[in-house]
């Protein structure tokens, strides 16, 4: 039996078990163990793919190649470390009386359900199932966003539900158009939604239909990436839901939606022989990047602040994938990794900071360095990393994106530099008063588990200093798959 079934099976059964016993005191630990087991299965799968190449299963319903296997490992890793943080954090929230037993069951079941949909998005080869899983992820996270049942969280969840539901419906229309285009090829039949089959026949797909389909797919999945102007749900959902959910939303969901767009782009590029898809992605990416960087300055809620930073980084990645070419694709893949590691680490620290200050308002979070130095340092290092300062990995990938832009679109480089500078200023003007300054009254340290933060930031630092050989190989293989040739 392939480990793919394990990766999908563990969260599936975990979901049902947690729906039944998710309120037990050990449920948090069980959540971590389930995610850990899925992570081990993902590592086994990675070795399998590394040794024997692409794995295809169940009449091509599942297909794991160099591109998605690395995202599976990343998803499993972030899911696992966030679960480590989530255990004590949610127990604390329950002590504070914000949650009851039924909500704990819902939370744990939906955590596993969300992980299941993420794995399904990544492993499936069927573009229809990919859509189903993406919509499933929306449904699971809607329930997580509204977990606290406050008027704000209900409003955020409703907005998220309607915007993403309508948005992703566009992606289904795009998928139907793809299937329609595939139907024109004789003998393709039921396999007309299988990505690998479509990719093999990409040159025969009708270019007009494909370009219309791509617009719908980009708008649909772009809503989930949080591309401006479809981003309104993102800051609300991030700020009102429980913090572990913000970490997995930013670290995993956005990446996986981008993954869906990149897969579609590969098909459209093969059919169109023109850079239309890439240019659309560059435009949306650049717009999201610049607008989100400006919005960073206006935020008053610490989780909203970092969700805008997520939009900004997703913008860079979309831009880089749109740029195409080996160097930009390599940079985008690396940026996906370092961003999701750094951002989930930041949300974990921010969760602790908000529990210390008992509010998410930036002006009330003060003097973290004095209250709890570990949390303060975690936040400083996280923000330094996400702002793209050397020696962290984000610097490396942003530098590579800049280099690639210089090569093909030199006139866009100033905009990128400007955006990075604006974002840097936006983050630091809020960071400084939060961590330094005098100790406010009534702030007490909380029990914090900062291992996930340190592990994530450690890996990001390592990636910035030197990319380990295995990983560089992996990225190059994925780049060769997406862009046609390797950068190194």
């Amino acid at each position: 039996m392939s480990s793919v079934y394990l990766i999908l099976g563990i969260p599936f059964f975990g979901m049902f078990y947690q729906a039944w016993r998710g309120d037990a005191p050990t449920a948090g630990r069980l959540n971590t163990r389930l995610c850990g087991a899925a992570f081990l299965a993902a590592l086994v799968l990675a070795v399998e793919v590394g040794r024997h190449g692409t794995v295809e299963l169940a009449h091509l319903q599942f297909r794991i190649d160099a591109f998605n296997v690395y995202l599976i490992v990343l998803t499993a890793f972030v899911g696992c470390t966030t679960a480590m943080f989530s255990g004590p954090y949610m127990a604390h929230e329950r002590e504070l009386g914000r949650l009851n037993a039924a909500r704990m069951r819902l939370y744990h079941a939906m955590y596993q359900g969300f992980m299941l949909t993420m794995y399904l998005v990544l492993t499936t080869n069927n573009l229809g199932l990919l859509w189903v899983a993406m919509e499933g992820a929306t449904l699971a996270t809607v329930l997580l966003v509204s977990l606290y049942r406050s008027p704000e969280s209900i409003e955020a969840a409703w907005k998220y539900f309607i915007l993403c539901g309508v948005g992703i419906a566009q992606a289904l229309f795009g998928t139907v158009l793809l299937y329609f285009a595939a139907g024109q090829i004789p003998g393709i039949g039921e396999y007309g939604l299988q990505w690998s089959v479509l990719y093999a026949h990409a040159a025969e797909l009708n270019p007009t239909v494909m370009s219309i389909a791509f617009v719908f797919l980009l708008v649909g999945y772009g809503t989930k990436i949080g591309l401006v102007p479809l981003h309104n749900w993102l800051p609300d959902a991030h700020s009102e839901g429980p913090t572990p959910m913000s970490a997995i939303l930013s670290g995993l969901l956005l990446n996986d939606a981008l993954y869906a767009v990149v897969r579609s782009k590969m098909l459209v590029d093969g059919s169109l022989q023109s850079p239309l898809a890439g240019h659309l992605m560059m435009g949306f990416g650049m717009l999201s990047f610049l607008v989100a960087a400006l919005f960073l300055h206006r935020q008053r809620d610490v989780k909203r602040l970092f969700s805008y930073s997520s939009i900004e980084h997703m913008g860079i990645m979309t831009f880089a994938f749109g740029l195409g070419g080996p160097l930009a694709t390599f940079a985008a893949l690396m940026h996906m990794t370092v961003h999701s590691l750094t951002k989930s680490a930041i949300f974990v620290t921010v969760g602790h900071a908000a529990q210390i200050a008992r509010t998410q308002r930036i002006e009330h979070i003060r003097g973290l360095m004095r209250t709890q130095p570990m949390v303060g340092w975690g936040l400083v290092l996280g923000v330094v990393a996400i702002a793209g300062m050397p020696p962290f990995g984000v610097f490396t990938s942003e530098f590579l994106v800049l280099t690639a832009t210089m090569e093909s679109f030199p006139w866009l480089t100033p905009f990128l530099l400007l955006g990075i500078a604006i974002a840097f200023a936006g983050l630091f003007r809020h960071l400084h008063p939060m961590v330094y300054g005098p100790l406010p009254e009534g702030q007490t340290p909380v029990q914090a588990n900062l291992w996930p933060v340190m592990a994530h930031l450690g890996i990001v630092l390592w990636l910035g200093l030197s990319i380990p050989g295995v990983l560089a190989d992996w990225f190059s293989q994925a780049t060769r798959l997406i862009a046609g040739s390797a950068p190194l």
Partner: protein
Amino acid sequence: MSAQSHSIYEQAILFIAALVVFTSFLMLAQKRLSGMIHLFAVQGAMLAATSALAAYTLPYPHLYVSALIIVVLKVILIPVMLHRLIARMDMRQDAEPAYLYGYVMMAAASLVMFSYYVVEPIAQLSTLATRNAMAVSLAVVLLGMLLMITRRQVVTHVIGFMAIENGLFFAAVASTQGMPMVVELGIAFDVLVAAIIFGVFFFHIRSSIDSLDVDRLNRLNEVEP
């Protein structure tokens, strides 16, 4: 090209396509919630008819299954659920305030023309029925959005959302003879779960803002008060 030059099946599809778009227009004009739910059920029935027709003529037996799914889900289950919800919330007779119906109708008509314009390039690829079905389904999707934009009731938003799904489904059946079975089952499952979550949300929204008017969902703003 005269209508006679097409097979009975194509003519039937064209006829149903026209009716589907017509129900979308009726929804836009309908003020009462219960009337809107009835229209939604009628639209669902038309989809089921399309599906069964395609299954019978082409023949694609698996489309019978999807016709059955639609009847159960969109003609019976969801409308009944919505009726019971509005009955429990005492909103059976509630009507939306007038929202510039003339302009809404004109916008709707231009959206239909826009949909025909978008699918125009596909013309040489497909038959008349497919082309019309594509345009009509895109129009139903856009009209569903228009419904959501112009109304203020949470229940209407849900109906608009489900009408968008109807449009997508019509595209899948009429132009590609239905998606593969796994996908169709998955989509049906998602729609069902979404409907249940919507139902739960009605009560949450009502208990948190004491009404079902989305204009009062305004706590989260970019600009702080």
